[in-house]
């Protein structure tokens, strides 16, 4: 009895594997049937299609005495519905000070420090952030090359 059951089960499994999932058979002349085509969110290699790229300029020059300097980065994304890329620009040390090779400092702050893209699919959407330096800070600073490193953090948010 067990053998019979085992053989029967094996047959059922084989049939289940080999038979394509035909939902409808049209047997009558002029008959109709329906089928669904559905995309996958993965490509043929199994990689997730959703993704984004944030392109950040290597170096951003602030002219001397400029109290407000705009800089741009771009975002290209293709995400799920109601999703978008958010980018935050910040000074990782939190002190918002540019320094020169002598240890002299120049205070600044960042305007428009984050941006959320217009939608899930954007092509090189340009985003602007602004580096601001007070006139008083410029006036008090020895003329030198001051610099700081900014961190860009990208995340996916609901929109």
């Amino acid at each position: 009895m067990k053998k019979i059951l085992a053989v029967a089960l094996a047959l059922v499994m084989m049939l289940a594997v080999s038979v394509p999932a035909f939902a409808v058979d049209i047997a009558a002349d002029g008959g109709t049937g329906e089928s669904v085509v559905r995309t996958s969110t993965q490509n043929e290699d199994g990689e997730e299609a959703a993704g984004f790229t944030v392109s950040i300029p290597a170096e951003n020059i602030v002219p001397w005495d400029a109290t407000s300097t705009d800089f741009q980065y771009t975002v290209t994304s293709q995400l799920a519905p109601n999703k978008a890329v958010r980018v935050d620009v910040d000074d990782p040390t939190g002190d918002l000070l540019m320094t020169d090779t002598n240890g002299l400092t120049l205070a600044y702050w960042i305007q428009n420090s984050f941006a959320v893209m217009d939608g899930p699919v954007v092509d090189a959407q340009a985003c602007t952030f602004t580096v601001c330096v007070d006139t008083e800070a410029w006036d008090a600073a020895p003329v030198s090359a001051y610099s700081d490193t900014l961190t860009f953090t990208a995340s996916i948010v609901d929109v």
Partner: protein
Amino acid sequence: MKKLLAMALAVVMMLAVCVPAFAADITTDGGTGTAIIKTSTQTAGGEDGAGFTVTIPAENTIYWDAQSTSLTYTVTSQLGPNTGVQVTVDDTDKAYVMTDENDYTLAYTLADTTGITTSPVVNAQAFAYTVNVAEAAWNAAVVSEYADELTFTAELVAI
């Protein structure tokens, strides 16, 4: 051949100018990238941010019989780190003699003829130099208006 090379070089240079230097691409959710902000020592108009002004009184009055008269000038500067302005006051013709319209003369000396700013960035820092006329010279002088021309020389020095 030369023309071709020149054109190729021109194209390469144009491309080098046009392509922005994107340092980093962020492609993952929560990914980060960094960029540098750096000040230029030139303004947006291409002018050098460093500079100084020495303000010299057009005329300095020495009262009759005054053996020591302190006269001032001011320096405003914004320079590179560890750089100051040195101002030297001297008689243009090195004779150290004031003359009147009748060519009468009055000898004098100068003291504290060199001033150096205390910092790269100073705002109207005042300096005094002294014009000395000996009592004997006053006593021997015909009462008249004596004058001489002084030269102020300003230069950058390490401080």
